[in-house]
């Protein structure tokens, strides 16, 4: 179960907003995390707490295919991203590195600071602050498995290599 505070973002948050290209000279999670969302929400990495949740509108993660973007978000301690929709490569990359991403058409109803609870296994999001509950289409078991195991490579290790 994921439990944390919502951080709100708008439409079309691109991978440059998430982590600017000038910081891509490293693949270190901590170094990338230090600059996460820096241009659109200065100080985000200082304010966010482990387990918090990013909530955005449409087309989150559009732009380049850089896997560094979900790595930076995960590196900040963000436990999940909820959005009305995701750009397709960002969605793949997130799941592959073990960052839960959830499509929720009612994402606009969530405000910054709302306390959220996300149950990935049962496909339920609870907005504790607003006393509202939403269901979302659960990932199939193997995708839940990937996320639970910390990403695609870890999952492959367990399932296919031993």
């Amino acid at each position, binding site marked *: 179960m994921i439990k944390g505070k919502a951080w709100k973002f708008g439409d079309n948050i691109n991978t440059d907003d998430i982590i600017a290209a000038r910081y891509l000279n490293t693949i270190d999670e901590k170094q990338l995390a230090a600059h996460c969302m820096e241009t659109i929400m200065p100080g985000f990495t200082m304010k966010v707490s482990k387990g918090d949740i990013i909530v955005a509108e449409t087309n989150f993660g559009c732009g380049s295919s850089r896997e560094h973007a979900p790595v930076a978000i995960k590196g900040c301690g963000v436990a999940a991203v909820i959005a009305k929709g995701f750009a397709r*490569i960002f969605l793949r990359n997130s799941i592959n590195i073990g960052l839960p991403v959830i499509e929720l058409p009612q994402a606009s109803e969530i405000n910054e600071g709302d306390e959220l609870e996300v149950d990935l296994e049962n496909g339920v999001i609870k907005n504790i602050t607003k006393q509202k509950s939403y269901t979302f289409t659960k990932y199939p078991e193997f995708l839940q498995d990937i996320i639970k195991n910390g990403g695609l490579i870890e999952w*492959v*290790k367990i399932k296919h*290599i031993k």
Partner: protein
Amino acid sequence: MTITEKIIAKHSGKDKVSPGEFVESNVDLVLANDITGPLSINEFEKAGATKVFDPDKIVLVPDHFTPCKDIQSAELVKRLRGFAKKYKVRFYEIGKVGIEHALLPEEGLTRPGDFIIGADSHTCTYGAVGAFSTGMGSTDIASAMITGKVWLKVPPSIKFVYTGKRNKYVGGKDLILYTIGKIGVDGANYKSMEFTGDTIQNLSMDNRFTMCNMAIEAGAKNGIIEPDEITALYLEEVGVTSDLTLKSDEDAVYESVIEIDVSKIMPQVAAPHLPSNSKNVDEFSDVKIDQAVIGSCTNGRISDLRRAASILNGQTIHHEVRCIIIPATQKIYQQAVKEGLVDVFISAGCVISPPTCGPCLGGHMGVLGEGEVSIATTNRNFIGRMGHPKSYVYLANPEIAAASAVKGKIIHPDKI
């Protein structure tokens, strides 16, 4: 189901799939190049893998910075070469290598109904033979090299219906540039673009490759064309026997249907810095160019070279323009020599590059300096794509690129 849904269902062990559904699919071919492959190999090793799922279904194509432009690129290719040797996967050495998306179909590695993934965004090219093919990240490719599987969300399909006769010089490039101009660079984000209609039924394979190649420039997951007699003839040439009955069902569900009257489309040019900035070539008559690039996975096939040569025959490249011709594969290069096309190019003052992606991504073999302008038959004109951040790329078909190289400015081929 649509043709895309049918291929995905078959490779996922299901009778039916629907858009939005997550599936795990078996792949028929896994591709990586000299830029993305080394990263995949790192992940492969991180996973502790000791073997690949099927050496015959993995292809490593060092085409981007080859023949190696510097020490770093030589090290990257060494990494691919070493991995290929160790795991006995397909690897194309210099002398055999060509641009991946021209090479694989030519090698008979892409078939109707196949499920193909590649660590290169233009992997969508193989939709032209009726395959489902899409680009992914390096980690996905590493995983597929180990397991032979990939996870996927079934895309909704948009049906594009092209009808009517093509105007002079209007080819696959013009149709796709026009289409991207109409729907935008995210107009098919996440979706499948299915190209249909009598215009497509009469379109050559090379033109079909060009169209499917640029599906990604509208954000699409894949582009696809139902295999037909034209596909069959092509497959016969490359020694592939395959099922050609694969079609979308009459009652297939499309998210939308977009009808395009081809007779109204004139030769297109896309201005910097988006492929969607496409307009009639006549609207660009005052744009001076420094360079023309004719090649790439989009337009480096033999018919593209023939089209360029038909314009350049007996002409001279403008004295202030560099015209770079890049046959996409060795076979295409050899054919161009046999047909006398290379003679036409050299006589006109062009330079011929070995097969490489090279200048398309600002790698080598024709990088632009500050303020320079190139017309190119490539696929992207993003900021700094061909070199300096303040350089400019205009996308066009081979005839326009050739004519512009002669005139020194962007021009309709009939006006030189």
